[in-house]
């Protein structure tokens, strides 16, 4: 790590990354329903904040990170997936295999989420992971409360359908 102001700036940011990367990765997992997309989204979110770290005053950097992540997921995930390998360059190791599955998850939920639109997944993630109300979700998604209610209603019904068809059974990625 370098010395001087850069080190101070990096140091604070590194602490933030270490503390927040896993919860952000979890939130990203709920947004994308894909571990690799979740990692891409998490990296890009943290990189964008890191670009400003020490120059901008973040009152609540963890909340701000989630706002950045939501916007990225809604609008730019396709572009992001295309650009990240190019941005990283040949000297940066391939990151696809670096996300480790450490806990059980419900295959039916992953499958159900993959059938939803990014906006529906976002509304549901903010509801179920962040435990936000409709008004706050609308603010985070920069849309009306009516739109959020619609996204939540359709998304929740789809999840209920999948839940009814699948008894609680936890699997890991790659397992039948």
């Amino acid at each position, binding site marked *: 790590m370098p010395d001087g*102001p850069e080190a101070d700036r990096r140091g604070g*940011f*590194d602490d933030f*990354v*270490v503390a927040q*990367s*896993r919860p952000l*990765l*979890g*939130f990203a997992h709920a947004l994308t329903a894909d571990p690799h997309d*979740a*990692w891409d989204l*998490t*990296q890009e979110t*943290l*990189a*964008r*904040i*890191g*670009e*400003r770290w020490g*120059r*901008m*005053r973040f009152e609540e950097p963890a909340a*701000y990170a989630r*706002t*950045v992540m939501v*916007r*990225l997921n809604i609008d730019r995930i396709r572009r992001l997936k295309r650009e990240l390998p190019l*941005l*990283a*360059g040949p000297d*940066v190791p391939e*990151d696809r295999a*670096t*996300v*480790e*599955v*450490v*806990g*059980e*998850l*419900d295959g*039916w*939920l992953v499958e159900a989420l993959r059938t939803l639109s990014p906006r529906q997944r976002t509304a549901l*993630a903010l509801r*179920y*992971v962040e435990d936000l109300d409709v008004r706050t979700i609308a603010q985070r998604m920069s849309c009306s409360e009516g739109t959020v*209610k*619609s996204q*939540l*209603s359709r998304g*929740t*019904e789809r*999840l*209920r359908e999948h*839940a*009814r068809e699948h008894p*609680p059974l*936890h699997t890991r990625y790659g397992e039948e």
Partner: protein
Amino acid sequence: MDTTETPEDRQIEDAYGRLGTALAPPADVAVRVGRLVTARRRRRRAALAGVAGLVVVGSVGGAVLLRSGEDGEGEDAVATDTSSTSPHGSFVLSRADGSTYEFDDLTLSCAGTGPGGEKIAPGHIVLFSPFQPDPSGKVLTEPFLYFDGVVDQIDGRSFRLPFESDDGSSDDRAFVLFAAEGETPGTKHPNEVSSAEAGAAGTVRVRHASCGPTPVLDLEADTTLGSEVQQGTLDLKGSFVTP
């Protein structure tokens, strides 16, 4: 939204709880993110240099350029308006020690290619001074000025600095006003300043901006630009007008 609880809702909540904790980042996550931050900064600076490089290499592949300052036709100009209503304007960079530098050779473009051959993004208008590195290509021999704006977002608007995109990303700003200079007697280190940095202040006023057959820009800056590299702020004042 139907708020009636169903038997499946608890199952959904529990499943979300497991989904959110099922993944772990790599142990060296801070190092990996740090590399990306560095790459983003490097790419942005390369893009800035590449756009200005058009002036140096004189090849713009169909771009329409308008230059201010010199009356003669520049060798690098694809189309130069030499009428009495040609674009005019300049910006003065002022340092803390009182020394100044005037940018009076400015090029305006809505098209062209940057480093690696990428095009100036559609809908963007850019104004820049000649990019003049030393033979190594790494050290500026003259200060460099660069303005990049999204036409639809800046036309007819004024901005108070610092001005930043909603998500803090350099990719999504309506505009950026950027200046750089190499090591000078008044500064121990090279400096790079922009309208988005902490410490920036003042106003950027875009009375008109459009991209058609001929790019049009009426820009006025009365600003202090914040340093991106932990150096002091620099004042930048001036205007640029196309007919």
